[in-house]
């Protein structure tokens, strides 16, 4: 019986011609302490039934119900004392077996003979369970990642590409609206398209001056490529820059070139 104890809950053990099964007792006698271990090897009443059918070489398609029920009840009785919670499923099966057996004892009217074998449902369930049981064994034999298969997982330096936030125009407008709403408490700005392009030009002129230090007034105007409105805007930007003291406009004498430079006077 120690063999039973050490026997793992092998997935192969229900095989009739396999070794695992032959070490199980051939008669119904199982020492009570070993019974628990023994029952653990079964996954339920269907599993036990399958075992009995194959152990006794019963024909699954023509199960001798009397014999099978007798065998099965023998186990269940022994079981009841020890594993009550397990016994529920097993008891249900007992009832089913007895019912099938008794139905088979009833005289059948001849015309119904081919209709319903009381065993049909049991056979169907046994076969379906058997199929799943075998499938489970095969699944378990498949190589598994982490157990039989090691997947590549080498290192790479994740340059945390600081994904710059996406900003939509609406976000910007909403933000500006917020600012204005708050600023409106103490200021009144006229902010319009025209003014905006003036301010854009102010930035552009400042950039140019930063680069060149000093520029001739006329160099700030792209007369050939820009239309009158743009030239006007550019002019307004220069005036605004001057007014805000951001640039210094100098002219040595009348009609001499006018120069702009960033106001750095202190």
């Amino acid at each position: 019986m120690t063999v039973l104890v050490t026997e793992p809950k092998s997935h192969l053990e229900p095989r009739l011609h396999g070794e695992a099964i032959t070490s199980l007792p051939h008669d119904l006698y199982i020492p009570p302490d070993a019974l628990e271990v023994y029952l653990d090897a079964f996954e339920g009443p269907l599993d036990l039934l399958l075992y009995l059918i194959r152990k006794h070489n019963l024909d699954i398609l023509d199960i001798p119900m009397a014999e099978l029920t007798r065998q099965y009840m023998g186990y269940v009785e022994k079981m009841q004392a020890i594993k009550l919670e397990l016994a529920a499923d097993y008891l249900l099966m007992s009832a089913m077996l007895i019912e099938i057996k008794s139905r088979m004892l009833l005289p059948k009217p001849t015309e119904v003979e081919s209709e319903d074998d009381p065993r049909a449902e049991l056979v169907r369930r046994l076969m379906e369970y058997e199929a799943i049981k075998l499938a489970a064994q095969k699944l378990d034999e498949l190589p598994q990642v982490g157990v039989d298969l090691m997947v590549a997982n080498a290192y790479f330096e994740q340059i945390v590409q600081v994904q710059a936030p996406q900003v939509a125009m609406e976000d910007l407008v909403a933000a500006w609206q917020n600012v204005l709403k708050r600023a409106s408490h103490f200021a009144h700005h006229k902010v319009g398209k025209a003014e905006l392009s003036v301010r854009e030009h102010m930035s552009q002129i400042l950039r140019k001056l930063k680069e060149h230090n000093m520029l001739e007034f006329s160099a700030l105007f792209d007369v050939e490529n820009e239309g009158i409105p743009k030239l006007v805007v550019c002019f307004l930007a220069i005036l605004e820059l001057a007014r805000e003291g951001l640039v210094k406009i100098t002219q040595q004498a009348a009609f001499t070139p006018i120069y702009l430079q960033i106001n750095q006077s202190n």
Partner: protein
Amino acid sequence: MMESNNVSQMKVVLEAALLTSPNPLSLDEMLRLFPERVERATLRMLLDELKQDWQARNLNSMELVQVASGWRFQALPELAPFLSRLNPDRPHRYSRAAMETLAIIAYRQPVTRGDIEELRGVAVNPNTIRQLQERDWIDVVGQRDVPGRPSLYATTKTFLDDLNLKSLADLPEMETFLEQPFSEDEVILESAPETPPQVDFIDNSDASS
């Protein structure tokens, strides 16, 4: 850098991506690797080349394989015994109950817990279901429209990946008692007494394979 030798460089990038990714990479993911537009056919070709390059390697250690959710490099199976010596606490194999539950879900999906219990003839331990869910091998794909609206379980892509399968069709074929399905009870039962069929289903199925 990608200009002069575009295709070779793409292969290098692919190789690095596949060797560093813990999960299989789908074609879509691999396309994301490249700033420029790459045809899926080109990608497939490169993957095949890469696979062959590694197969052709003298004293090779890894193979490029395709599984359900994409492509991955994995160590050659014969190296597993060595590699498994590194991590003694590897994921364990499941109990027979868990494997049978998994098999029912895999082969009969989508199924409810009730379906599983009926098939196995015993109550299903909720832990078994949870265990398989935690492994991300099964998940709930819906509810059956009956009272109680029980959850319907199905297997996941991870399940296929972890068992090295491309699709459910690659699951081992299900064997049954008999060559033909046992649906027409009458016929079989009638013929039963005369010539007892060979019941030993295991030997039987082996013979057929």
